[in-house]
């Protein structure tokens, strides 16, 4: 138990001393996960809207598939991306393996299903009369979507929060395609908070792990406060 307290103390120390290694790792975490969240939002929201408002055959099956993909293990996502970008894979020539870009891709793929699913839920929460009102006011397809999104902004931003939470907390894909590299340059390194936590744990440094976990949660808190602020506007 004392490791938890020690972890807190250590977390405070890391933060107040602005430990350069930890700062770099934390910054990398935020950059990668935020980028992935933004990308996933850009895909998931239109995709969710297309599915929700669509009337194509197999729509129900597609929704079920998306729900099923909530259970996609991060390791499997990591593996699939790995196979695609490893040197002998179809995109091997891009040399993406063990780069932050690869991590962004993997996290984007990972959170896409849940964000799409939550977008669908968010949209179905909008009063149907408002949908009819928008149509009757002569909204183009885009105007319609933008306004429905505005109306569903609370739930959609909640989805963003969930997506970000999942992205920044996952480790399986990050370690497989990133490799948890601590290089001398910031850009070549792929160590993020979760992979660092894993490493510390595997080395038996429990308080360090907990300290890093606390740092991660503080970052998440900041991002969430930002999201909440937008939500309530």
């Amino acid at each position, binding site marked *: 138990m004392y490791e938890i307290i020690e972890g807190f103390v250590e977390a405070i120390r890391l933060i107040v001393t602005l430990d350069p290694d930890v700062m770099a790792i934390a910054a990398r975490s935020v950059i990668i996960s935020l980028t992935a969240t933004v990308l996933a939002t850009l895909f998931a929201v239109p995709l969710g809207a297309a599915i929700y408002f669509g009337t194509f055959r197999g729509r129900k099956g597609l929704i079920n598939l998306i729900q099923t993909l909530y259970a996609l293990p991060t390791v499997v996502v990591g593996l699939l991306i790995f196979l695609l970008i490893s040197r002998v894979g179809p995109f091997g020539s891009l040399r993406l393996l063990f780069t932050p870009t690869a991590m962004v891709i993997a996290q984007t793929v990972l959170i896409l299903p849940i964000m799409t699913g939550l977008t669908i839920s968010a949209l179905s929460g909008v*009063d149907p*009369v*408002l949908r*009819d*009102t*928008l*149509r*009757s*006011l*002569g*909204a*183009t397809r885009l*105007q319609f979507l933008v*306004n429905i999104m*505005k*109306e569903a902004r609370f739930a959609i931003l909640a989805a963003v929060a969930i997506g970000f939470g999942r992205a920044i907390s996952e480790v399986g894909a990050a370690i497989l395609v990133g490799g948890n590299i601590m290089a001398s340059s910031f850009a070549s390194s792929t160590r993020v908070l979760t992979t660092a936590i894993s490493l510390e744990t595997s080395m038996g440094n429990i308080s360090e792990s907990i300290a890093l976990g606390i740092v991660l949660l503080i970052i998440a808190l900041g991002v969430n406060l930002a999201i909440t602020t937008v939500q309530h506007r």
Partner: protein
Amino acid sequence: MIEFEDVSKRFDDKAVLAGVTGRVEQGEIFAVIGPSGAGKSTLLRLVDLLDTPTGGAIRIDGTDIHADKGQSLSIRRMMGMVFQKPAVFNTTVAENIAVGLRFRAADERAIREKVEDALEIVGLAGYGERRARTLSGGEMQRVALARAMVIEPEVLLMDEPTANLDPVSVEKIEDLVIRINRDLGTTIVFSTHDMYQGQRLAHRIGVLMDGAFAQVGTPREVFTLPASRNVARFVGIENVVDGVVVAAEDGMSAVDIGSARIRTRSPFSRGERVSLCIRSEDIRIAPAIRGRRVFDGNILPGTVTSVVPRGPFSRVTVDCGFPLSSVLSWKAVEDLDLREGSQVTASFTAASVHVVRAGED
């Protein structure tokens, strides 16, 4: 302008509309009245392209509006709609009203002016910055109205636009509707359950019953010459009596209603089963008289069974073998000293009896 050709609409296995046929002219105010659940909202939604008919066609200026999906937007942009249970966007009142203008890329200044004007007109001046979600029922309905009006549509569809409003607000809105129609030439189709509103506003009224228009006509036609027993009942003719024509000559006929014979003007011939519709305001009540008098009409002795206040009037029901309702001013009721049990005579002219074929519907 808007033509309904044998329009039908089913939900699952329930036929809501079945053969609606009719026409709304350019610049006309057209009221759709009918009982709850008749399909008024459904019909308006079909016009606004919010739903697709199961059969038949709706044409605007000759084009089948449901035929070409590619045209939907431009057709919809001709129209504005106010929904029966209006909903507001979770933003300010002003933003709610501006939505349609924004869709049309109006400039910011024009939007602000139009929204201000609209708020003024619907009696919500100063409400612009309020959160729309906290409005009262009537306030919301007025916002919805303003929202549809600011886009100055060619066709304005309104589904029970004043259902939640008090008479003073109703009057304002009605004046506004008339002004819009007159000044901008807007074609207006609205549904209402307030027949008098239909009459006050509409050039013509369509009575929707059992999935189709039971009657389409001017307010006067619908209210004085209802096409069937059901329409008569619905437009508030309180006295509808069934009988058989026993004599017919020169357009005059006598109808046996069991307890009495009624003189009427009607084109029906002997033996036909008919319903007699007599407006309560056409029935005169007088003190019971002894002996008989010559009278070119119908004069029936009876007993008052109830006196009920109705607005500035009272409704007096007399049992003349069958119940007959009449409307009198409170003063008349006092002068005649009418009360339950009073012996009176009820009289009405042959001309005030409107005869329709029985069981037509």
